[in-house]
């Protein structure tokens, strides 16, 4: 089990107040807080060896290059990728997905091809494929969802077919908390000859991830959702694809030789990293990975599951509440979307804010899913390694108070 109290001491922000009450931070699906070691890594970089990397022939630049590239190795190890050259640093998960849509998609998608997504995807795993499909005359298909927010797998044979060129799905829903059975879906799509991208923005921070076992062709995720700084995303790709695909962004560092009218490309992974990278934040992301590795992703998942089970139980007793997503905690991660009858989620969020409880209210970048659930928004609490049962109690008490304030008004 996690020593949550010890962990909390590493996060100064968790000791602060919001609106005069101790902060309860439950918006981890949007972004997590950062432990002191991550912040210190930034400071150390800027104070001691800030320099542009690659090709710098002085000490600071050599050191910065070594540290930057070392994080690539750490990242590879974290997701079980044997080859660091298959790790590309981007700005965020969104850019990682777009990279595939541009570089792979523009090359391999043809009119009439089908791209399979789900109804629970984040806009970042919908819009890039819409743009691609419109440009190429391809067709989007969507795996539906069941009443309790799981993927509807019944008519899969009609959706994943010989025409499927790409399956791109989320490992875990950022609204429903649903953990999807990505492995069998990947196997099925591979059997039809399709390529598989996993949106790991929610999966990688919360679940152990082994890309070789998943056998996904691409995996995208964001550092800022797993204790790392903002401004760093990761794309893992199978070497064969990364070798075959054309580059995405052109510019410094991604080239081998350049003439006025043409150029040849650098080796992996640099072929896909154009211009000065986000050196400082990548290095700080390394500290986040170390931190998570030390805790162990199994322990992270176990802690969140326990907290989620407790929260589901406590929340379900609040009058008028509706909780979305899978009923059983085995099928979900630490994300709970809910609403209260007759109360707009934004009003819930506002009232919780006054209690020092930070949750998110809105469509969570999943408008089609909102449509499917027939709501305009939900209130969402999401957990991470530093959250406690006491914080869940504070959430539940605050939600009960919202309910009371608003029911007064009906009378």
């Amino acid at each position, binding site marked *: 089990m996690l020593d949550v109290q010890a962990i909390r001491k590493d996060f100064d922000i968790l000791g602060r107040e919001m609106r005069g009450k101790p902060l309860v931070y439950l918006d981890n699906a949007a972004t997590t807080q950062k432990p002191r070691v991550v912040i210190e890594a930034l400071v150390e970089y800027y104070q001691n060896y800030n320099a542009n990397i690659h090709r710098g022939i002085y000490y600071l630049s050599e050191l910065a290059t070594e540290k930057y590239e070392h994080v690539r190795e750490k990242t590879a190890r974290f997701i079980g990728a044997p080859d660091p050259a298959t790790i590309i640093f981007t700005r965020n998960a969104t850019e990682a997905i777009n990279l595939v849509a541009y570089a792979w998609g523009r090359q391999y998608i043809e009119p009439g091809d089908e791209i399979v997504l789900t109804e629970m995807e984040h806009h970042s795993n919908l819009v890039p494929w819409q743009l691609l499909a419109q440009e190429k005359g391809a067709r989007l298909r969507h795996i539906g969802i069941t009443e309790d927010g799981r993927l509807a797998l019944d008519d899969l044979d009609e959706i994943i077919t010989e025409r499927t060129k790409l399956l791109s799905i989320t490992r875990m829903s950022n609204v429903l908390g649903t953990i999807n059975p990505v492995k069998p879906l990947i196997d099925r799509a591979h059997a039809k000859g399709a390529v598989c991208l996993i949106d790991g923005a929610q999966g990688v921070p919360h679940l152990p991830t082994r890309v070789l076992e998943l056998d996904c062709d691409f995996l995208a995720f964001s550092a800022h959702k797993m204790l790392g700084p903002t401004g760093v995303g990761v794309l893992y790709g199978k070497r064969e694809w990364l070798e075959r695909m054309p580059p995405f962004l052109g510019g410094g560092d991604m080239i081998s030789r350049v003439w006025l009218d043409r150029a040849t490309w650098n080796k992996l992974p640099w072929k896909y990293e154009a211009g000065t990278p986000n050196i400082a934040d990548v290095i700080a992301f390394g500290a986040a990975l170390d931190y998570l590795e030390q805790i162990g992703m199994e322990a992270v998942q176990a802690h969140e599951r326990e907290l989620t089970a407790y929260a589901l139980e406590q929340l379900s007793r609040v009058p008028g509440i509706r909780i979305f997503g899978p009923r059983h905690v085995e099928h979900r991660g630490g994300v709970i979307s809910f609403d209260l009858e007759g109360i707009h989620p934004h009003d819930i969020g506002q009232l919780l804010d006054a209690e020092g409880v930070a949750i998110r209210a809105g469509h969570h970048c999943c408008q089609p899913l909102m449509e499917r659930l027939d709501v305009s928004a939900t209130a969402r609490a999401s957990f991470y390694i530093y959250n406690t049962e006491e914080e869940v109690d504070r959430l539940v008490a605050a939600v009960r108070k919202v309910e009371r304030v608003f029911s007064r*008004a009906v009378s």
Partner: protein
Amino acid sequence: MSDLRDLYQEVILDHGKNPRNFRKLEDADHQAEGNNPLCGDRINLYLKMDGEVITDIGFQGRGCAISTASASMMTESVKGKTRAEVEALFQRFHELVTGEAEAPPGAPELGKLTVFAGVRDYPIRVKCATLPWHTLRAALEEKREPVSTE
């Protein structure tokens, strides 16, 4: 939730729960759609005019307590008013909720609308309070495109 009392005043909670004029006017001669891109909430506004004067007004849509109450109370305040009077009222209301001007509670033109003064402390919610008003202006100008609050 002491600090929040200013935002969620009883009268706002009441109008939020039981909005007045919450209906489509089948014989509307002006109408407009507004949406708040921040939350995706939408409002449809229907007007009947007699020359310069608003003779009837209704709205539909979904939104938070603030936007629903604002729409509800707006419809009550503007019925019987001329375009020019509505525009003046909007200006005062906008100043009130953005905090650009200190309107003493009960400022005569605003009447009950002064209950929205608390919004000024919550920048994001200013858009909720003003969404119905932007939509009303669009209806008066017979805009075809949905308006949004930014």
